[in-house]
């Protein structure tokens, strides 16, 4: 069963992302970085996760001056709504 993981906190301050990655299945899951979760774009915890499985809300990144690299997908909140329907379940990590 595929899961869309919404990560809303910075891994530099909380361990939500680390716990998320304990459950993460890189074959079928994806991560969306929301709010302070955008700070995780450059965190070492995500270094080994395939970039095609990582999304970030671009408004939230721009607000924090976080640059989304070309191989990471920046999406809008409207696109996030569509993304929900591509996965069986959603977990919010906050």
């Amino acid at each position, binding site marked *: *069963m595929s899961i869309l993981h919404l990560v809303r906190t910075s891994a530099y301050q909380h361990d939500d992302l680390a*716990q998320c990655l*304990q*459950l993460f299945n890189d074959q079928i899951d994806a991560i969306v970085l929301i709010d302070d979760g955008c700070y995780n774009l450059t965190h070492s915890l995500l270094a080994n996760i395939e970039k095609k499985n990582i999304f970030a809300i671009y408004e939230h990144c721009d607000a924090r001056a976080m640059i989304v690299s070309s191989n990471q997908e920046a999406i809008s909140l409207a696109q996030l709504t569509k993304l929900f329907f591509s996965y*069986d*379940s*959603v977990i*919010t990590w906050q």
Partner: protein
Amino acid sequence: MTKLQKNSIAVLNARSAFDGNEGKEALDVALIFGSYEQYVSLFFQGEGVRQLIKGQQANLINAKDYLATFSALEFYDVENIYACLTSLEQRNLAADFHINNVNVLTEQEFSDKLRQHKTVLRF
């Protein structure tokens, strides 16, 4: 692929026993779903595993002893309780719990078991 339990709910605990009200709220949610005979499971990961450890004394810090209410889970047929082995080991905690029937699972088993639930609520 693991089998999905229809309309099943996983309550994923990630906070220690007295770090905010999340632990009590998660337990309340599990008991409410249980009282309506819904299929509900409790998961403990990260600091959440501390909620299970035996010998806690909430009265010493003037906190409500909601941990005692865990014993009500079996009356509501909430029998699926899972703790993350890695989280226990990282904290040097033994599997010495104040409730029975806690299943200690490896990370992979924990992940697989969680995926059998349609809805995951994290506290």
